[in-house]
């Protein structure tokens, strides 16, 4: 009988090992690159369409063109969902958990890698939308400059919102585990619920993801209340960022809690 050699080295697998696995998994799926490319292109295309159709010089022009981030948010949210549900639909989760059985560590590594990738792409898409939309202005409107008050902040927070919606999707994916159901909840929660709740209870509107992104994060000027009856006090950028981060964190925490307790 041969004696086994080459046993495992000292120490144990750590966050960086699992993060490397997750990074390889993310970048070796063609669908990742397609989704990210379409995310950036869709943002620029919508920003250009908005730019061409902007006629009011007094509008928050930065906010107008950054509305281009909205379709990309949907895509990156779906990519976040798939990052988790794809594990279950393909059966990969068994190989993943065999390699990294400490489940909170696994989810943390997955979320960190996805956050880094979606933040990078989100910032790129946000800047792209800003410049593409700005270049498309007609009617004698000149594009806002990065040096103007609040502009850079609006663009950066627009990029960060991709990351946070992506993480919200990842958390929902971990909770729900089925692709279609998780996407349905994401789309309903982020995109459909907004207008409905906003119309029914104005006080809550400011806390809905779509209004946080559209009216708090990507604005350069504080929202003013002109018509008192229609007034919604939107959150300041800092509070809005905290609230959106909280949504993503709650979804991830619930997903982690369930991942630890449920059979894989």
């Amino acid at each position, binding site marked *: *009988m*041969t*004696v*086994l050699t*080459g*046993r*495992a*080295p000292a*120490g*144990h*697998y750590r966050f960086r*090992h*699992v993060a*490397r*696995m*997750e990074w*390889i*998994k993310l970048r*070796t*799926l*063609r*669908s990742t690159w397609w989704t990210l490319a379409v995310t950036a292109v869709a943002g620029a295309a919508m920003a250009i369409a908005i730019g061409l159709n902007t006629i009011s010089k007094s509008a928050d022009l930065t906010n107008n063109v950054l509305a281009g981030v909205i379709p990309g948010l949907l895509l990156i949210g779906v990519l976040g969902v798939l990052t988790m549900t*794809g594990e279950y639909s*393909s*059966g*990969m*989760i*068994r*190989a993943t*958990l*065999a*390699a*990294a*059985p*400490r489940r909170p560590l696994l989810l943390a590594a997955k979320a960190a890698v996805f956050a880094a990738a979606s933040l990078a792409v989100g910032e790129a898409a946000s800047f792209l939308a800003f410049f593409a939309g700005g270049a498309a202005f007609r009617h004698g409107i000149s594009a806002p400059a990065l040096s103007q008050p609040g502009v850079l902040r609006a663009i950066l927070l627009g990029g960060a919102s991709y990351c946070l919606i992506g993480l919200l999707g990842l958390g929902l994916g971990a909770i729900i585990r089925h692709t279609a159901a998780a996407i349905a909840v994401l789309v309903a929660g982020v995109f459909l619920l907004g207008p409905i709740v906003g119309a029914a209870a104005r006080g809550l509107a400011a806390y809905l993801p779509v209004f946080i992104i559209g009216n708090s994060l990507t604005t350069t000027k504080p929202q003013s209340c002109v018509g008192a009856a229609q007034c919604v006090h939107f959150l300041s950028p800092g509070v809005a960022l905290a609230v959106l981060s909280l949504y993503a964190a709650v979804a991830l925490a619930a997903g982690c809690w369930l991942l630890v*307790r449920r*059979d*894989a």
Partner: protein
Amino acid sequence: MIEVRNLTKRYGSTLAVDALSFDVRPGMVTGFLGPNGSGKSTTMRLIMGLDQPNAGQARIGGRRYRDLHWPLREAGALLEAKAFHPGRSAHAYLDALAASNGIDRRRVDEVLDLVGLAGAARKRAGKFSLGMAQRLGIAAALLGDPPVLLLDEPVNGLDPAGIHWIRDLLRSLAGQGRVVFVSSHLISEIALLAEHLVVIGQGRLLADTSVAELSAGAASLEDAFLHLTGVSTDYRGHVAVSGAEPGGWITQRKEGSS
């Protein structure tokens, strides 16, 4: 060594694994035998920590699976073919798994070569046949060169040459002093492969014995197995299940529900 102690798993009102205790020792192939639905796959999932037991525990080299320091270097498992994303190549799949346990990337090419997938390594694994998927699963199990191997129905989908190949491979791995634990519902397959047998039925231990001991006193190993499991089979069909009808016991069972 794999130690299973009082392992119990309930799914709703069904007792899938019922106070199971046994050891799997190194240096030989141990067959894990039982009719479909007898709890073999559940037991393997419990050993791997994929499912939580309701009672009892399983240890690999003295530790629960989730407490292993380098899981893929300490235990390798093939639980189901197709535990991979169809859009990813075999190479990328193994590369990712290797990274998680600090395994040298050269080992990826080594195991791809070993299982005969070197030529298909860059293709999308979703296009693989069941036999190729099974080989990729075996490559993943061997990636960390682990001293403990668990394989759930490894011959599924393999052609006769593939079956012969895996038989030789598993025997040589056991010969190197590894723990090799192989489940099957095919007694004839196990008879050619294993020295030791753990037999279960309805989640309960029926026998923990050498192949030679089990077949002694019966006309054949198959007769001995049928006699043993006859009293505890879930999915027995209306066709009489008896030693007089070799093979009849498989035909009435649910496919792949073990």
